[in-house]
């Protein structure tokens, strides 16, 4: 249920790591009950933002209210009102699932009387009841993730932060995690703030903010973001992509982008253009499709880069970021 009250209000939030701006003056609001996605390549500043909102990292400038509390002056109240699923695993794998939840309940001061019932409910919710007394080290990646979500929810937080919740999971498990998250949103009326660099996951969000180099470059519903691109996208593979690229430019004045998968370009009406192109092109066509734009195309349009081709360069960026920040990164 989306209401008009704000679960998170961020105002000019900035994190400066010795001259390197990991987060550069971002401002946005998240409505209560919303699934809000933070989308961007690795090293864009997503995790740093989450850490500041969770009071784990002190902002260099700016401020934010989370669940109505000031992240600078009311840290303890913020922490009580939020649940966090970190990017890296944070379970004690030498303990059982039940013990992990129990310890969480103890430090979050869940009343002793209610704790066992609550633990069983959350285990049931995440379909882990039969594994309650198994050591976490014997769990699969997906089970650990579900247990972390169960743990993050144990103290009934108002806002749940999920930093790359499906990173490193196989597609089937990713879908399953998403089923839980969507169910959660409808049944528990909780605000979800998540970061991802998977475009297909961003589609599940009510609204997404696209972040790049520490700045928000777009913020809207996935539908509205895609509507920015009015044209259809055509993907084509030919016998000689290089020649085709030139021919497209000369004949139709179309600037195509070439990569390992062939050529990609936008046209106002793909369904009409494709047959014409196949007829007229002097180079044999191997495969051609036309489709509505995805968030990938939106990202490409806004930044000039593809989010998924970032792996090599983003790793470099992350490395240099970490070097600059030294220990502060942790």
């Amino acid at each position: 249920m989306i209401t008009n009250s704000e679960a998170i209000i961020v105002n000019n939030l900035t994190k400066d790591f010795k001259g390197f701006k990991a987060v550069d003056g971002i401002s946005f609001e998240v409505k209560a009950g919303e699934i809000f996605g933070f989308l961007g390549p690795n090293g864009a500043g997503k995790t740093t933002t989450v850490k500041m909102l969770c009071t784990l990292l002190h902002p260099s400038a700016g401020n934010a209210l989370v669940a109505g509390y000031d992240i600078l002056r009311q840290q303890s109240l913020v922490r009580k009102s939020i649940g966090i699923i970190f990017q890296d695993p944070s379970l004690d794998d030498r303990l059982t699932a039940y013990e992990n939840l129990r310890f969480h309940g103890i430090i979050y001061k869940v009343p002793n009387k209610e704790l066992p019932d609550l633990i069983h409910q959350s285990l049931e919710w995440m379909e882990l009841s039969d594994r309650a007394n198994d050591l976490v080290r014997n769990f699969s990646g997906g089970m650990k993730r579900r247990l972390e979500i169960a743990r993050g929810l144990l103290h009934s937080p108002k806002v749940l932060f999920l930093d790359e919740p499906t990173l490193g999971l196989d597609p089937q498990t990713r879908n399953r995690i998403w089923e839980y998250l969507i169910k959660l949103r409808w049944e528990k009326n909780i605000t979800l703030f998540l970061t991802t660099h998977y475009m297909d996951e961003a589609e599940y969000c009510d609204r997404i903010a696209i972040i790049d180099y520490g700045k928000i470059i777009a913020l809207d519903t996935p539908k509205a973001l895609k509507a920015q691109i009015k044209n259809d996208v055509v993907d084509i593979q030919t016998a000689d992509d290089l020649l085709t690229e030139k021919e497209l430019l000369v004949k139709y004045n179309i600037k195509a982008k070439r990569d390992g998968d062939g050529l990609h370009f936008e046209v106002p009406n793909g369904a009409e253009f494709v047959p014409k192109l196949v007829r007229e092109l002097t180079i044999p066509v191997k495969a051609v499709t036309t489709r509505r734009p995805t968030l990938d195309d939106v990202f490409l349009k806004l930044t000039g880069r593809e989010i998924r081709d970032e792996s090599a360069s983003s790793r470099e960026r992350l490395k240099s970021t970490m070097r600059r920040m030294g220990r502060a990164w942790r």
Partner: protein
Amino acid sequence: MIDLSCIYMVWLRDTIRYFREKSQLYGSITRPILWLFILGMGLRGSYRLTGNYNYTQFIFPGIVAMTIIFTSIQSAITIIWDREFGFLKEILVAPVPRTSIAIGKGLAGTTLSLIQASIILLLSPLVKVRFPLLHLLPIYLVMILLSFSLTGIGIVIAARMTSFQGFGTIMNFVIMPMWFLSGSMFPPTGLPKWLNILVRANPLTYGVDLIRGLILRLSYYSVWFSLGYLVVFAIAITFLAVYFFNRGEY
């Protein structure tokens, strides 16, 4: 600053893990036994000590101290593991003061050290060490002070170490030097000046001396000085441990 449920949780977790990981339990019992029986028996003939005890009996209090220093520091540096494997984040993001986390860690290290040291004390009849049962009370007081201080040292190390450089490094640069310089293996008398300074500065020296006094009625320093030194050291290291743990970036 003091959050009892947080202290309890940190303590309980370490204790559960200790009893679950039997290898740690066995390993830390085997080590002192090897020292006591093999080294102790082996060197017995070549050492002449004044008094009515043999070498094995002489090093017995030192073996108790060894057990405490190993267990305490090993217990504290699990902080590094928790940092590497993520669990520390779960505690640090909870609405609890960090000071309480450090105190919980200190109490856990103390508890585990006392359990291990008690096992060694139970071996005392095997080396024919006899002492009045009433002495157990002050012995435990000294062991608590030692365990708590040494866990504090472990916390300082863990908070300062940026990555897990291995228990071996800590053993070579902290545990073994402290133990060798504690008068556990040889009487802390008639030493060259530089060695004497190191021995006299080492809090472990006074712990060993107090325990030896209570077990063998043999001591080199005054009881009140030793006790005072240990108490002051325990307080100082507690503040240091809390300070470094609070300041650390995780």
